[in-house]
């Protein structure tokens, strides 16, 4: 089914989406979206939502299961505290993506902004994944507690700067893979760069193949450059901060 979002307040639009999901619609296409917030928030099930236009902030927050495809680009706060499902953005996206994300996948073809993947966490088989095709701003993976963050640094206008400063500051769980170089000054406290093992390559291969398939990217163009792996050196980086 299709919903025309032109001139529609976000609550009216989101109510229509929720009603459609409740009725068991398998595919919902939104037309003329421009700035409506909270699309797909808190919905669960198997629905696929295709968005034409620019979705507003907090797209897919608390979502648990459905798939969202954004044909253009997205703003801030995508996949905020998302629980399960998948969001694929065919352009760039803004700041604070995947904040506190607990499961599911977020794929962004282009660049992303500041504070992406902060506070991500995992529990048993719930492992959230964010893959970014372009570059990222400062605070990438800040306070990360779990999950997988992958930065591909493709088609970057500033290739010397795949990622910003304060990279993974306070990280105490999960793993970050970055294609390209990282300068020591960019690295946050308590993070270490380690060699990739065979297991890492298996994970990367699987996830990046899925990413490339969803976004029509040649997989070979991704693996022509080595990856860096970042992990926390401590489970409690600030344990002794106030204890001296």
């Amino acid at each position, binding site marked *: 089914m299709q919903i025309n979002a*032109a*001139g*529609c*307040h*976000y*609550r*009216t639009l989101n109510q229509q989406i929720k009603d459609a999901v409740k009725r068991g619609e398998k595919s919902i296409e939104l037309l003329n979206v*421009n*700035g409506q*917030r909270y699309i797909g928030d808190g919905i669960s099930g198997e629905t696929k939502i295709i968005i034409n*236009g*620019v979705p*507003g*902030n907090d797209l897919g927050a608390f979502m648990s299961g459905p798939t969202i495809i954004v044909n253009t*680009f997205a*703003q*801030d706060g995508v996949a905020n505290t998302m629980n399960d499902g998948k969001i694929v953005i065919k352009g*760039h996206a*803004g*700041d604070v993506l995947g904040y506190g994300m607990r499961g599911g996948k977020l794929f962004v073809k282009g*660049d992303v*902004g*500041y*504070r992406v993947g902060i506070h991500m966490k995992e529990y048993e088989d719930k492992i959230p994944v964010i893959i970014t095709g372009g570059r990222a*701003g*400062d*605070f990438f993976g800040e306070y990360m507690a779990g999950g997988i963050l992958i930065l591909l640094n493709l088609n970057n206008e500033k290739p010397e700067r795949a990622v*910003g*400063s304060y990279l993974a500051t306070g990280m105490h769980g999960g793993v970050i893979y970055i294609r390209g170089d990282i300068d020591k*000054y960019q690295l946050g406290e308590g993070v270490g760069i380690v060699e990739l093992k065979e297991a890492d390559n298996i994970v990367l291969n699987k996830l990046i193949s899925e990413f490339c398939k969803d976004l029509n990217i040649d997989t070979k163009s991704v693996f022509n450059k080595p990856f860096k792996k970042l992990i926390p050196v401590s489970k409690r980086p600030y344990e002794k901060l106030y204890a001296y």
Partner: protein
Amino acid sequence: MKPGILSPYCEKDISACGLTGIISKKGRKIKGEVIIKSISCMDERGNGLGGGFAAYGIYPDYKNHYALHIMYNDKKSIPVTEEYLREAVRIAHQEEIPTRKVKAIVNPPYFMRYFVNPPVEIHEYMAHESEELREDNYIVKTVMHINSEIPGAFVVSSGKNMGAFKGVGFAYQIADFFMLENYEGYIWTAHNRFPTNTPGWWGGAHPFTLLDWSIVHNGEISSYGINKRYLEMFGYKCTLLTDTEVVTYMLDLLIRRHGLPIKLACSALASPFWKDIKRMDEGGKKLMTALRMVYGSALLNGPFAILFAHSKGLVGLSDRVKLRPLVAGEKDDMVYMASEESAITAICPNPDKVYRPDAGEPVIVELEKQN
């Protein structure tokens, strides 16, 4: 659909300010409807306690006069102010700023505009004699006098061929009130306010202006006290109860009075961290160290994204760690900057280029030809 499809549910939303700006680099006139459409996409970022617009190029008939937009909270302050103005400046023309009744706006203040020039003797001695007698400084003094000494009267804007229109309401309601569809300008900025720790009153709405500077701001200047005390040393009086006011005066001080290039002034407001200065080349290191030493009190602390406009251009700047959003877009000779990309696509569906400037990295746009 009415611009500003504000919630049929009308209750308080958690939000933050929204801002947007447009400039035609060729100086082509843009209709008021365009900026209204853009800001109305971000009603959600305001809460109806402040909205406003700045427009450049709107008074071609009086383009060599300072256009004083004055807000009177109290009609009694009108004769007092006008008596002062007649003494202080030469008034070429004065008129009521046209407004219409808008249901959502109750009890608005009264608005007048005066097209003025400093007295003739100011012209004659001007810059050579003393800073005080420079024509623009004289106007600044006049503005400061009205704002601080005449109860109930506030100068909303004081630049040439430009004006600010602001008040308590959503931006689209303020636009309706001031009938902004009747204006055309080559630069527009707009703001939807969500006041957090300062009052939502007519003078506290954005933009904040002085001469031809106008600022719209999303965020909070935690260094307000330091900035204010520093500005007071140079004769600026902060009277409008809102942190953004200091940004306006700081830019006036750094750029107009101290002659800093815009980019350097931005580096004083959002200066690079010492850790980043350490990595610069010798020249950069020296410059930034000097800038931080001299203008330490001009540093803006706290989250912010601002747009500042002046008669020759538009500048966007965010704080050093990007705690507030800012997006820029381009199409032909038009440049757009806004808190959200949807505010750009609302008026320019297919921009040639969209980008998100880095923290503290100003987007500086200048007019191609003198207007």
